[in-house]
């Protein structure tokens, strides 16, 4: 039986991930803080704030959905007071009708990547005020490269200019990725 907060999280994030940004005012505090590996890599502060942060997250998730069949499954959840901790399996599966990852189209057709995420959600006055998510981005790149470290390194080096550009855009208050990259 899911708790009230758990159902609230499902509802809010389903809407955010589908690109419905009207959810922000309804479900998130204005000073919402997002700290995920991507914000750590792409900002000096390590996190983003407010509606801009929510939009950034929405774009990333929509980008994955455009490129892969994606499922998000909460496998464990612990709740105490205003904090909910979730262990999430984030699965990306190749789909012949989708273009695949932007930086490498040579993935095996049956490739499936499972990322184990740990996420902490903090609530204030019934709204989400903070999200801290961590996962091993490097291991994910290694999985994408089918365990071939040299291939993973080559992709990381290829990503470098894109990351630099993303960081510069975020510093100027611009979102680096379109919601549906082609």
């Amino acid at each position: 039986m899911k708790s009230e907060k758990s159902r609230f999280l499902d509802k809010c994030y389903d809407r955010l991930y589908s690109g419905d940004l009207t959810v922000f005012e309804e479900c998130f505090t204005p000073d919402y803080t997002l700290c995920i590996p991507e914000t750590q890599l792409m900002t000096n502060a390590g996190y983003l704030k407010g509606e801009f942060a929510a939009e950034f997250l929405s774009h990333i998730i929509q980008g994955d959905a455009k490129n892969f069949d994606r499922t998000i499954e909460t496998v464990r959840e612990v709740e105490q007071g205003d904090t909910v901790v979730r262990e999430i399996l984030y699965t990306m599966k190749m789909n012949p009708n989708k273009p695949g990852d932007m930086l490498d189209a040579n993935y095996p057709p049956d490739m499936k990547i499972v990322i184990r995420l740990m996420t902490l959600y903090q609530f204030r006055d019934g709204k989400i005020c903070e999200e801290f998510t961590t996962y091993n981005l490097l291991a994910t790149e290694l999985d994408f490269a089918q365990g071939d470290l040299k291939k993973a390194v080559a992709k990381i080096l290829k990503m470098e200019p894109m990351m630099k550009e993303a960081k510069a855009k975020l510093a100027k208050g611009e979102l680096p990725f379109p919601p549906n990259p082609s």
Partner: protein
Amino acid sequence: MVSEKPIKENSTVGKTIVKAKNIGSLTRFVLDAWDNAYNGTPGVFQKYFTPDFKMTGPETKMVSQEPDGSLRGKPSIQSYHDMNHGDAQAWGKVVSECVWSLEADNTVVRIMRWTSSKPRGSYAGLENIPKDRVVTINGVFIDKLRNGKIYDMFWAYDTMSFLVDIAGGDMKAAGKALGKMGEMMEAVKKAQAEGKTMPMP
């Protein structure tokens, strides 16, 4: 399993600083277990862990022979000890803090923060790291307990951000360093397959 080099005086690995508020007895037990594992205290495995103990994290995934990327049983604790000592010896100071924790249903969730400073020169394939570099990791740990002992531990942190931070924000340098680490990781994996342990690179 006694450490070859003593913990440096101003470091706190092996004697974690608790910053989390109102921690419970399970969290205290878990922190004691891992501090003792770090310190190589004799009998630590029997005292704190079940015989079928399993641990899974970024480092184990790189060297594990198991499909789920875990290490198991007593050798996993030896590996934890070895890999952490390898890390600690590359830095002049490592501060270990438990900054947040939560307990429910025989599960302890904690956020641990490690701040490494005073690098000794090279680490994780990166050479000549500036002496004033300070890097911080925030990792989330889940310890699950059965009959008063830990039977499963999973931890997550982003090794990519960590590597890029050590490289002073230079992703290209971090990528090249990762390439250098490949051979070292293969050697660790081979040792694991032969039932031996060796310090992580």
